[in-house]
C-alpha cells in the first residue's frame, strides 16, 4: 500500500516537493509574486543538494521559457513557473514547446493583469494563454497542486503525448496557504514517473533540426498534425490520472462532479474557489434544492465529451468566470456555451463574473449566483435578453 504522511505544507512548497520528487534536471525561472516561494524553495533544494538539477537564474520569463525549450530539446526534464505579467512576457515562446512537442512542465500561480497594478488572483493570465497548445489543468487545493504537478510529468513525457503541461494553482489562495495534505514517500513517487527518454533529442552524434522553416507548402499540415495529436492526449491524461488514483487513492477526471445526483441546476467553477462552492451547494441541498457542482479540472484540451455528459440532465447551468474578456463577457462561459450549442437538448447557460483581482468569493456569492440565474432564466423564457453580470460590484450609489 502507498506510504504517505500528513504534513502542513504551503501550496508553493507542495509544488516544489513534486518537482524534487520528479527529479527535474533543469529549472529556469524568474521570481514574481505570487509564484516566488516555488522558485525560492527549488533554488534552496538545488543549493542544499536535495535536488540534482541545473538551476538557471534568468533575467526574464521570456528567457526562462527559452531555456526550458533548449533544455527539453536536449532531453532534460525541465520545470518553470510564473504568474500574471510574467506569463504575458513569456507568451511568445510558449508556442514553441507545444509545436516542437517538448514536454516542458510549468506551474502558474494565477494572477490578475495590470493596470491598475495588481498581484492578486484571478484567471486573466490563464485565459490569455488558452490557445498556446499546452495541456492545461487546475488545482483546487495544495494536495491537488502536488498531485497534478507530479502527474504533469508522466502525462507530458508519455511517448504518445509529448506536449507541454501547465498546472494552474490560484495565486495566494494556494501558493501562500498552508494546510494539511498527504505527502508520499520519495520511493513511491519514483516508481510512478518512468525514466524520460525523448525520441528525438539534440545530440551532436545524431544531428537533427528542430523548429525549421515552415513555408506555406507544409505549415498547415504541421498544424493539423499538432491538433490531432493534441486532441488525442485526453485519453492519455485520463489513463495517467487513473494510474495515479490506483496508486495513491486520489482520483482525478477532466470534469469532476459534486452532489450532481438528480441535480437540475448546476454551478460550474474552476480552481481554488471550488471547495467554497461545495459549501454553498451543501447549504442549498440542505434546503432541499436540486443543485450540484461541476468543476473543469482539464481546461485544454477542452473536455467536450465529459462536459456534455455531466450536464445531460441539467436544466440550468451557472458558469463562473474569474476573468473578463472585454467586449465579450466571460471566456469560460462562452466556451461552455459553444461546447453545448450543437446538442438537441441543452441547459440554459447563465454566466457570472466574480473574484477579479483577488476579491474573495464567499458562500453567499455562490448562493446569489444560483438564485439570480433562476431569475434570469425566467427572463429568457419571456423572450428577454439577459446581460452578463459581475457580482459584488459597488456601483457608487450609497457608498
Amino acid at each position, binding site marked *: 500500500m502507498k506510504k504517505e504522511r*500528513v*504534513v*502542513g505544507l504551503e501550496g508553493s512548497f507542495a509544488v516544489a516537493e513534486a518537482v524534487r520528487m520528479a527529479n527535474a534536471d533543469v529549472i529556469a525561472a524568474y521570481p514574481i*509574486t*505570487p509564484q516566488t516561494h516555488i522558485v525560492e524553495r527549488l533554488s534552496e533544494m538545488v543549493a542544499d543538494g536535495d535536488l540534482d538539477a541545473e538551476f538557471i537564474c534568468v533575467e526574464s520569463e521570456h528567457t526562462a521559457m527559452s531555456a526550458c525549450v533548449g533544455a527539453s530539446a536536449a532531453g532534460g526534464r525541465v520545470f518553470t513557473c510564473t504568474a500574471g505579467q510574467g506569463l504575458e512576457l513569456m507568451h511568445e515562446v510558449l508556442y514553441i514547446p507545444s509545436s516542437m512537442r517538448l514536454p516542458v512542465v510549468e506551474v502558474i500561480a494565477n494572477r490578475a493583469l495590470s493596470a491598475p497594478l495588481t*498581484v*492578486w*488572483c484571478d484567471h486573466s493570465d490563464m485565459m490569455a494563454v488558452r490557445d498556446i497548445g499546452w495541456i492545461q489543468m487546475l488545482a483546487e487545493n495544495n494536495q491537488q497542486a502536488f498531485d497534478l504537478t507530479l502527474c504533469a510529468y508522466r502525462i507530458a513525457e508519455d511517448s504518445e503525448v509529448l506536449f507541454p503541461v501547465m498546472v494552474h494553482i490560484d495565486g*495566494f*489562495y494556494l501558493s*501562500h*496557504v*498552508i*494546510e*494539511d495534505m498527504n505527502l508520499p514517500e520519495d520511493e513511491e513517487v519514483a516508481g510512478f514517473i518512468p525514466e524520460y527518454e525523448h525520441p528525438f533529442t539534440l545530440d551532436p552524434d545524431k544531428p537533427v533540426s528542430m523548429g525549421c522553416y515552415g513555408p506555406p507548402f507544409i505549415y498547415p499540415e504541421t498544424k493539423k498534425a499538432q491538433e490531432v495529436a493534441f486532441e488525442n492526449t485526453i485519453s492519455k491524461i485520463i489513463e495517467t490520472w487513473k494510474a495515479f488514483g490506483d496508486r495513491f487513492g486520489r482520483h482525478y477526471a477532466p470534469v469532476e462532479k459534486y452532489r450532481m445526483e438528480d441535480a437540475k441546476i448546476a454551478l460550474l467553477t474552476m480552481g*481554488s*474557489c471550488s*471547495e*467554497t462552492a*461545495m*459549501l454553498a451547494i451543501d447549504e442549498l441541498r440542505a434546503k432541499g434544492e436540486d443543485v450540484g457542482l461541476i468543476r473543469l479540472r482539464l481546461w485544454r484540451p477542452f473536455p467536450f465529451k465529459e462536459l456534455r455528459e455531466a450536464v445531460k440532465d441539467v436544466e440550468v447551468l451557472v458558469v463562473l468566470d474569474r476573468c473578463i474578456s472585454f467586449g465579450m463577457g466571460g471566456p469560460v462561459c462562452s466556451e461552455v456555451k459553444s461546447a453545448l450549442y450543437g446538442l438537441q437538448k441543452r441547459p440554459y447557460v447563465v454566466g457570472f463574473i466574480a473574484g477579479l483581482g*483577488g476579491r*474573495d*468569493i*464567499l*458562500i453567499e456569492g455562490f448562493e446569489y449566483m444560483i438564485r439570480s440565474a433562476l431569475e434570469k432564466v425566467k427572463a429568457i423564457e419571456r423572450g428577454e435578453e439577459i446581460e452578463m453580470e459581475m457580482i459584488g460590484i459597488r456601483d457608487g450609489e450609497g457608498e
Partner: protein
Amino acid sequence: MEICIYGRGGQGGVTLAELVTHAAISEGKHAQSMPSFGPERRGAPVLAFLRVSEAERIKVRAEIEEPDVLVVLDPGLLGVGDVVSRLKKDGIAVVNTKKKMTEIRSDIGVNKLATVDAMGIARDVLGLAIVNTTMIGALVKAAGIVKLESLEEPMEERFGKVATKNIAAMRKAFEETVMS
C-alpha cells in the same frame, strides 16, 4: 475555529499563524493559515488568518470576516479600523498590553478578553521586541486550540537554535495571561 491575527507588517503575525497551523496538523487536526494577501508593508496594519478544525477538512478559502478569536499583537492597533468590531459576540480578544484588564476593557468593547504583557516577556526572554511567538502562549491559554508542546517542533524547525528562547517566551506568556 476561526482566528484573526492583527499586527503590523514585520511583527510576525503570519509566522504565528503558520506555527499554530503546523502544531494543529501534527495533532491530527485540520488547519489552514492564510496571510492577508499582497505585498508586505512593514509597519502597516496587517491581518493573518488561521482556521483549525477537529474533524472536517477546511474547505472555505476566503478571509475571515467574523473571527472567534482575535489576537492583537500591537495594542496601538486597537483603535485602527473596524477589526475589533468584527469579532463574534461571544468571541475572545487576546491582547498584548501592559495595561490592566480594567483599564483596557474601556478601550475595547468586547465581552471576553485575555491580556498579557507580551512585549515585556519578549524583551526579557528573547531580548527582542518581537511578540509573535510569545503571543502564541496567550492564544493557547485563551482558546486552547492546540497543546503547548505541539508548538515545540514547528518552532525548532523554523528557528533552529533560538527556538529554545521562543518556546520559553511562549510558556511564560501562557503562565502570565490573564482572562476576564
